[in-house]
């Protein structure tokens, strides 16, 4: 390994010789081995690793000392767009985004190394979830549906490829997933009847390797469109399968033109990353008419289930149900609601909720739980292996859904209105689906993601903009700090120079939290006295 690193450094050095700027030997070179086994001083993937557990094996910050956690630095993007991305951390540099923007920031000091800005006038600017990285290159998607590969050293563009046609109604927001020599990218678009798909690009040339369509082409009789792929999936290297959640069908609120289950919308699918071939699919919301994208993290857990070792996949889905699935074959192990739901008549033999036709949107309105934002949304949950708790920011909520002939059968095709909601951090026992503890985070809801640590901490946020450190065992608050506005992203954590950092964002500001440094005055610059 060391030999490899040295030879890489030499190659990199040779390539850079003409630029006359000396660089550290190990800079920004992310290999597959690091993606498969991320080191504690890195966060090289959207979820931190391929499993999607968003659990770190760091133990410096503990339930005992977290009360002295304090701000190490903050970074101001000076943008009105909220940070919705998970930063990547590779070789001491953080990379994070808002729509049209990327920043590279020194993780030790929080100062900016470079800033990339490509103003786009097309496509929805609803959010940007972050970059992917492979070797020395970043991969970034734009609202107008282009995949840009940039040099991680300075943010210069290497190539740009089209992911989808923005003029058809697509846009892109997600953080690509790098698996082997594939950069896997998904699409968004709910306002038109379009097919969702995943597309794999060659990391070097940008050429298309494969495409998997979640739904048939628009215009196919009695078939659905939709199934957008707008959140980053997970990967099991042993089974060589990627797991991806797909979005709602279109037309969104009117299901009449798309009878049946509407494969593969509101589904979890397992695909071969080398070919894009479907291994299995599981529909979590058959015939959805409420916009409940099933794109929430498909979390991969190996462990005991009811006395048997299992390779599991868990999802707290937007439709209000918690699913445990055998990820080798897509068979259900457990399905239970984790908050108020009133749209299903029961669970079928395959573990899928049975939609109640009476609860489809109607001209005079239907009262539905949860609301369209769902019982949870794209911000990540976390799985804590020690306690066996699946911890999610839940959003118990009620709403009204309408649809009538005048709304048509194109795009949204109806209207819905949220009535009430609140935020609750819930810890679900994956063996039973029972909620072991819950922690209220305020009226309206929080929207913060969740991260857990080996030392027993759960990091998340409340609806008023506080970052919270909870005791994973019982949900009690151990530490908090006001960040000024609600967290729209999921926390990450890493260790640099022997110091553990917890990183959260709020609005356009990124915060790095750490325990106070041990006093070592000798290492600090002495104060010069002037004019005396």
């Amino acid at each position, binding site marked *: 390994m060391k030999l490899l690193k040295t030879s890489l450094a030499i190659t990199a050095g040779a390539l850079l010789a003409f630029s006359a700027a000396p660089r550290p030997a190990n800079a920004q070179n992310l290999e597959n081995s690091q993606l498969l086994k991320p080191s504690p001083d890195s966060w090289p993937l959207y979820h931190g690793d391929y499993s999607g557990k968003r659990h770190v094996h760091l133990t410096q910050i503990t339930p005992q000392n977290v009360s002295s956690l304090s701000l190490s630095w903050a970074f101001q993007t000076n943008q009105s767009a909220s940070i919705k991305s998970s930063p990547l951390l590779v070789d001491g540099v953080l990379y994070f985004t808002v729509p049209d923007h990327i920043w590279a920031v020194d993780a030790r000091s929080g100062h900016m190394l470079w800033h990339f800005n490509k103003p786009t006038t097309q496509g929805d600017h609803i959010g940007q979830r972050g970059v992917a990285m492979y070797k020395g290159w970043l991969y970034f998607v734009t609202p107008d549906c282009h995949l840009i590969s940039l040099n991680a050293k300075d943010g*210069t563009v290497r190539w740009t490829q089209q992911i989808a046609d923005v003029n058809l109604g697509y846009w892109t927001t997600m953080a690509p997933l790098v698996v082997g020599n594939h950069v896997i990218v998904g699409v968004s678009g709910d306002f038109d009847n379009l097919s969702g798909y995943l597309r794999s690009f060659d990391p070097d040339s940008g050429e298309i390797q494969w495409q998997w369509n979640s739904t048939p082409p628009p215009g196919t009789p009695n078939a659905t469109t939709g199934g957008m792929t707008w959140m980053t999936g997970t990967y099991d290297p042993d089974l060589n399968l990627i797991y991806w959640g797909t979005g709602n069908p279109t037309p969104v609120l009117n299901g009449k033109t798309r009878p049946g289950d509407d494969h593969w919308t509101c589904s979890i699918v397992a695909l071969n990353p080398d070919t894009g071939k479907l291994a299995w699919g599981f529909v979590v919301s058959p015939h959805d008419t409420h916009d409940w994208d099933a794109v929430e993290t498909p979390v991969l857990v190996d462990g005991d289930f009811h006395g048997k070792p299992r390779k599991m996949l868990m999802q707290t889905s937007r439709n209000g149900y918690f699913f445990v699935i055998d990820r080798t074959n897509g068979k259900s192990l457990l399905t239970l609601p984790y908050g108020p739901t009133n749209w299903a008549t029961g669970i079928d033999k395959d573990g899928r909720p049975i939609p109640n036709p009476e609860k489809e949107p109607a001209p005079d309105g239907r009262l539905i739980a949860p609301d369209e934002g769902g019982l949870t949304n794209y911000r990540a949950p976390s799985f804590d292996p020690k306690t066996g708790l699946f911890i999610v920011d839940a959003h118990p909520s009620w709403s009204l859904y309408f649809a009538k002939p005048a709304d048509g059968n194109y795009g949204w095709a109806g209207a819905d209105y949220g009535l009430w909601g609140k935020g609750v951090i819930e810890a679900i026992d994956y063996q039973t689906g029972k909620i072991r503890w819950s922690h209220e985070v305020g009226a309206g809801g929080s929207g913060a993601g969740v991260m857990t640590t080996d030392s027993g901490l759960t990091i998340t946020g409340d609806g008023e903009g506080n970052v919270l450190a909870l005791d994973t065992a019982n949900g009690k608050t151990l530490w908090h700090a006001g960040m000024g506005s609600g967290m729209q992203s999921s926390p990450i954590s890493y260790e640099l120079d022997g110091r553990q950092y917890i990183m959260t964002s709020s609005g356009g500001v990124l915060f790095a939290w750490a325990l106070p440094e041990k006093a070592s005055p000798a290492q600090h610059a002495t104060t010069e006295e002037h004019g005396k």
Partner: protein
Amino acid sequence: MKRYRIAAVVALIASSFIAVQTKQTHVDAASQGSASAMQTVQQPAPAPADPGAASYAKRCAICHGDQREGILPAFPPLLGIHRQMTDEKITALIYTGKGRMPGFPKISKEEMTSLVHYLTTTEQPAVETTSAANAGTVHASPLAQAGSSLFQQNCAFCHGRDAMGGETGPDLTQSKLVQGDKNGDAISAVVREGRPEKKMPAFNFSSQELLSLVAFIRERETAAASMKGNRRGVAVEDLQTGNAQAGKTYFNGAGGCSKCHSPSGDLAGIANRYEGLRLEERMLAPRDAKSTVVVTVAPGKKVTGTLAYRDEFTIGLRDADGIYHSWSTNRVKFTVDSPAEAHVEQFPKYTDDDIHNLMAYLQTLR
């Protein structure tokens, strides 16, 4: 320090060199891509008929990008440059150059005019070409068209591309605030300040941008009004399927409404004040209902007021004089009385018929 500066300059020159190199590779890669894969699309080149575009392509695009997107960090984007600089400033800058940017002193007057025109025209390609809702939309004014582009990027996700409601956001064409806003001030204020209580973010738009948004919303309002009986969205007549007598029974019985409300008291004439969806939303979840807080600040000493803020750590109220007070929750005891909680408790108990019947009954209270 001086040595550092030289190194920085060298690095800058080197990086500009890289940028230019990268740019060329990008063009090569793109053309290869289009040969091998149908999906690769070349960025449309500026129309050669426009002399300003031609001048830009010749003189500026090498550094500022084919689409004025810039090549950061070395070269700034020029999209939206008219929001940062006046025409005079742009002209002067082109003549004289600045920093690493060379001057173009020999450029002819005609070319300068067309180039500056090209740089400062709003670069808004038509956004919605395929939406059924917007098919055939002809924008009444360039202002509304500029507003449309801004709306599609920033507002459409929640309010729908046609402003008639989308994910979460209300139908703006039926909004009382929009309808009552004579000069666009109220709309602009909401856009600038956001609606934190409803999770609507604030937007930092210029006055001109706000005007264009208002123009677009007005245009959609007019278009929506012309749909008449076949209007999309929720109309008052859609909410008339209930039975008023059954609603009255529910009101006085199972619904428990009469425990707090009275048809001759707080609800007298309610149907004259609200109608349609607004009435139904208020009926199910009165958003502006006040909660009362009693804080025991010392043994025997209590402060009472209207709940103004609450999280796990802080409780805040407004007293009878409108003055705000707050305490750390671990230093005081307090109780919150929220009458509207009864509405939340009712959600799992309603049938859809109960709601429609109640709605019918409330509409008799005129």
